[in-house]
């Protein structure tokens, strides 16, 4: 009995309930996904991956490549639009950065589907066609805050004397930006890329709504397979997505913090 009390008294054991929940509902399920991905009927096999990479009907693989393309465009547009916004807000002369940042993040707290339907409404309202452009607009609209916030954070923490030092040493404002500010803010850009790129590939429902069911992204393909009971194939596709996430987070994580 005393041992039990001692054990509870140790503060590090307070994390145990949390660890158990994480083990059961986060870690173990990932292994189950991997297990399902390598099953075909009752046997272990690579059939699901063959089906994806070498099948005569390569629609899913094409969707995968197409999704990566859309995600890249979305990410680039987010950087081009989001970087100046973050840069202006991080400027020391800017009076109300907190309020502005809050206003940019606020739409993220609104249901993703409602935001998307609102975008559809906006396009209808302006008599614009739904399609690829609407898809990219919607994705940028949905994920722009994830780009602005990390860039703003790194820029804001930057020592302003670096800027002054570069100026004193004779750099032009453009040189200061390209040689000092931009390289130092890259960690923020990397985390932004990570937070925009992956969700764009994996988000489902959004692409259907924005293109009137004409364009599917990879997330939708996964969901369709799970829905129609092709659990093994769906798991294999999820595993492919997971591997890409693993690789890209190693990539981005290196420069972070």
């Amino acid at each position, binding site marked *: 009995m005393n041992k039990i009390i001692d054990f509870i008294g140790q503060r590090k054991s307070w994390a145990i309930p949390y660890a158990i929940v994480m083990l059961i509902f986060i870690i173990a399920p990932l292994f189950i996904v991997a297990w399902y991905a390598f099953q075909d009927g009752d046997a272990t096999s690579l059939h699901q991956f063959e089906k994806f990479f070498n099948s005569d009907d390569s629609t899913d693989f094409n969707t995968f490549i197409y999704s990566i393309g859309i995600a890249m465009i979305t990410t680039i547009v987010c950087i081009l639009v989001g970087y100046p*916004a973050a840069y202006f807000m991080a400027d020391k002369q800017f009076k109300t950065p907190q309020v502005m940042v*809050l206003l940019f993040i606020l739409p993220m707290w609104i249901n993703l589907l409602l935001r998307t339907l609102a975008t559809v409404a906006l396009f209808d309202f302006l008599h614009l066609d739904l399609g690829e452009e609407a898809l990219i607009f919607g994705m940028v609209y949905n994920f722009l805050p994830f780009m602005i916030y990390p860039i703003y954070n790194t820029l804001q923490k930057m020592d302003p004397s670096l800027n002054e030092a570069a100026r004193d040493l004779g750099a032009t404002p453009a040189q200061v930006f390209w040689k000092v500010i931009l390289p130092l803010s890259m960690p923020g850009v990397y985390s932004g890329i990570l937070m925009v790129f992956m969700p764009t590939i994996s988000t489902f429902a959004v692409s259907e709504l924005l293109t009137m069911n004409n364009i599917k992204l990879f997330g939708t393909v996964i969901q369709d397979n799970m829905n129609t009971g092709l659990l093994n194939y769906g798991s294999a596709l999820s595993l492919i997505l997971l591997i890409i996430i693993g690789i890209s987070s190693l990539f981005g994580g290196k420069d972070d913090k």
Partner: protein
Amino acid sequence: MKKLIANGYLWALMLIMYSPIFIILIFSFTDAKALGSWHGFTIDLYANLFKGEAGPSLNSAILTTFIVAFVSAILSTVLGSLAAIGIYNMRPAQRRMMNFVNQIPMINPDIITGISIFLLFVALGLPRGYVSVTCAHVAFCMPYVVLSVMPRLMKMNPNLYEAAIDLGATPFIALRKVIFPELKPGMLSGFILALTLSIDDFAVTLFTKGSDGINTISTFIYNDARKGGLTPELRPLFSIIFITILVLLIILNLRTAKQTANKK
């Protein structure tokens, strides 16, 4: 001049970001079936929503959303805060491992979290419903609570707890009287974050809700949108949620602003 460009750019961007939201806010005051056509000003949609005349499935979806959100926010705040204290007191190697685990649900796309928990229930042959949705929500909300509580712990004097124990407090009393008051602000923001994350969630809920007809607002909207038309009462519902979240966030931010001002 530079200031003008900066402000102009930011406000233009803001206008684009908010225009879809404004459209929904404005069209919540007209009872046209389709979004975008104006049938004159009326608050009928709001009245329908509050009188519960928006249809039984929407009513139960709203109820489910809030029950699941409150239960999972409370559970994840309790477990997450205890975990933060635990992790804080671990050795560096253990702490690094826990931090890594903590990041998994945040990095994983929702669809993967949803599918993996769905497969867990399928593999174990357990039925899906309220329990699976709540478990899933607790699992993906806890890491955010840990991250909100951790900074408060870092700022706390580590000797306070030891002092309380030396003065004869049991660990439970020390937790309640010494640690808890210090962590309260972090726990509150963790709770609000968990609440909004749970209300907002779509992908995880869709996979874990099972097929017995449980819906949250998100999955209700999804089914509705796939059928073509969108229930008009969703517009006032959305407007109310938006305004509530706006107010909550402003309160939270004013609190943190006040705290930083007090520190200075």
